[in-house]
């Protein structure tokens, strides 16, 4: 110990001997007794509380899905739900309903519960008939739509499973999202009746939109990707606990020429692809409106991007293929193979059977010789053939009006699935 510390320690020893004066207690008591408790302004506190409550009420009233709902787990749906929905059900995110109606054939239809958010409504239902409902299930029992205030919600998909005895079906049906202003919903059920006609029945139940699950991200995108025959404009992304929906418009002339649709567009979160669940297009005043539904986003979101991997493309060819002579190797059009497997004539037509990759559709096809040309009449017998190497080819026969002697096949262009590899970054906060 150095001298300073020794000095400090000595000082402490001295201070330790100091005790509070006798009169301290009396002085403190007097001080206490002359002091009044500060008046707490309870009225102001209440006022503040009321303001906060009012603010929250406004939030609830005008902001759909302001609160997540923690209800009870819907039981018995293990077989028809998996992944995200199963998770949410485990967490008790469903809204219990428990409304029943007797159908014409004596089957009891129960709405067990709902899960709703800004992307969809998922209905959990049960069909029960002790006498067996196998017959009916094979028939066209349909949940057609859900209606309510500002709500006209069409069914988009569904899964169901029957128990071993054939007396009970448990299923889920996905509908378009319902309005946050609806307080009562009605489900419209179409069931076949004995006379062969169908009948519609309906079942109404109260709905509490405040129990809908919270929208996690609502993000404007507003990015356009140009494709060969038009553009795709991505407008918005809505991420909810059940799904992630991308909406936009597209004006693509050859959009429906091949069945790829929108499934070549991927959503990549944190570098990993989110499973695509479905997509849809409907015509609008200018072009078409579309949506693509993906699974929900991961909870910890670091990056998010839309990847336009494949989409329909168009390649101008103006290719003249000489037919007639023997040709063993395929013709190559824009890097794609085309085999002519057969040429034949009937009394009226020339038939040329060709085979290409499954994603190729020829455009502006005609046959001709030096003197005249004739355009494609129609295409018949289109089949998909899986080759030994697993590759899928598309075979079809092109029909032309009979000409004297066709010497070549003219192809103006082709529609095909093209790799665009365009990336749109979506900001995440």
């Amino acid at each position: 110990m150095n001298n300073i510390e020794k000095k400090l320690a000595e000082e402490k020893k001295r201070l330790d001997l100091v005790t509070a004066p006798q009169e301290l207690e009396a002085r403190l008591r007097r001080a206490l007794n002359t002091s009044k408790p500060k008046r707490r302004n309870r009225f102001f506190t209440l006022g503040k509380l009321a303001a906060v409550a009012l603010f929250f009420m406004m939030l609830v009233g005008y902001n759909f899905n302001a609160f997540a709902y923690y209800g009870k787990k819907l039981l018995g749906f293990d077989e028809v739900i998996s992944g995200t929905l199963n998770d949410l059900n485990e967490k008790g995110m469903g809204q219990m309903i428990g409304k029943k109606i007797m159908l014409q054939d004596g089957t009891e239809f129960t709405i067990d519960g709902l899960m709703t958010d800004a992307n969809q409504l998922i209905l959990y239902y049960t069909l029960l008939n002790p006498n067996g409902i196998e017959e009916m299930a094979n028939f066209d029992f349909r949940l057609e739509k859900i209606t309510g205030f500002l709500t006209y919600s069409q069914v988009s998909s569904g899964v169901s499973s029957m128990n071993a005895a054939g007396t009970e079906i448990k299923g889920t049906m996905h509908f378009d999202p319902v309005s946050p202003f609806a307080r009562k919903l009605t489900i419209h059920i179409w069931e076949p009746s004995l006379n062969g006609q169908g009948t519609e029945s309906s079942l109404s139940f109260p709905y509490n939109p405040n129990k809908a699950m919270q929208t996690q991200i609502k993000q404007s995108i507003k990015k356009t990707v140009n494709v060969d025959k038009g553009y795709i404009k991505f407008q918005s992304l809505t991420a909810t606990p059940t799904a992630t929906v991308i909406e936009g418009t597209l004006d693509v002339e050859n959009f429906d020429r091949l069945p790829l649709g929108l499934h070549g567009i991927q959503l990549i979160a944190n570098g990993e692809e989110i499973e695509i669940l479905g997509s849809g297009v409907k015509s609008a005043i200018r072009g078409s409106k579309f949506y693509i539904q993906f699974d929900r986003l991961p909870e910890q979101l670091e990056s998010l991007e839309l990847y336009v991997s494949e989409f329909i493309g168009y390649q101008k060819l103006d290719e003249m293929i000489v037919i007639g002579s023997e040709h063993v190797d395929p013709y190559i059009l824009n890097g794609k193979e085309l085999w002519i497997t057969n040429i034949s004539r009937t009394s009226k037509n020339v038939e040329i059977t060709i085979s290409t990759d499954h994603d190729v559709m020829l455009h502006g096809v005609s046959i001709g010789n030096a003197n005249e040309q004739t355009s494609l009449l129609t295409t018949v017998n289109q089949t998909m053939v899986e080759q030994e190497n697993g590759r899928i080819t598309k075979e079809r026969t092109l029909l032309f009006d009979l000409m004297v002697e066709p010497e070549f096949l003219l192809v103006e262009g082709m529609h095909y699935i093209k790799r665009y590899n365009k990336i749109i970054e979506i900001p995440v906060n």
Partner: protein
Amino acid sequence: MEVFQLVKKAKKGNKEALLQLIMKEKDVYYKLAFTYMGNQHDAMDAMEEMIVRLYESVHQLKKDEAFYSWSKTILVNSCKTMLKKRKRLVLVEELNHQMENEHNHLAEDPYKHSEQQIDIQQLLLHVNEHQKEAIQLKYFHDLDYQTIADMTNVSIGTVKSRIFQGLKKLKAHFGGEGDE
């Protein structure tokens, strides 16, 4: 009665419970106040100020077990507020008067008699107020760094640095005895 129960009662506005809590540790409080104020009279004034402040705000105390450290912090703050006020008011005549008063007090205060005490106080004049405060709290009141940090509303690092720098200065002024 258990401290815990007393705190509960005090929070409900029971004056006697609050007083008992302070009286249980009266010497500790008093010494603390004395260190800041330098005389018995002001130390007790500071404690009066403290108990009134405690009474007014004890209902806000969140952790009952923190009563003592919380109340000591309030005492330290009361002392500082009083010192600040006094500094502003002290005029030369008053200062002289005060010094006379203190001379009168000396007779009844054994603490004041010591040459040693005057030594250390004079020595402490060589460090700044913050350093002095930190050194006093640590060496005279045996408080740990965290408690000092809480009481003086600075980080632990600052407390350590104040003590270290303060001691260094003191050593330099104490003079001559060189390295340890």
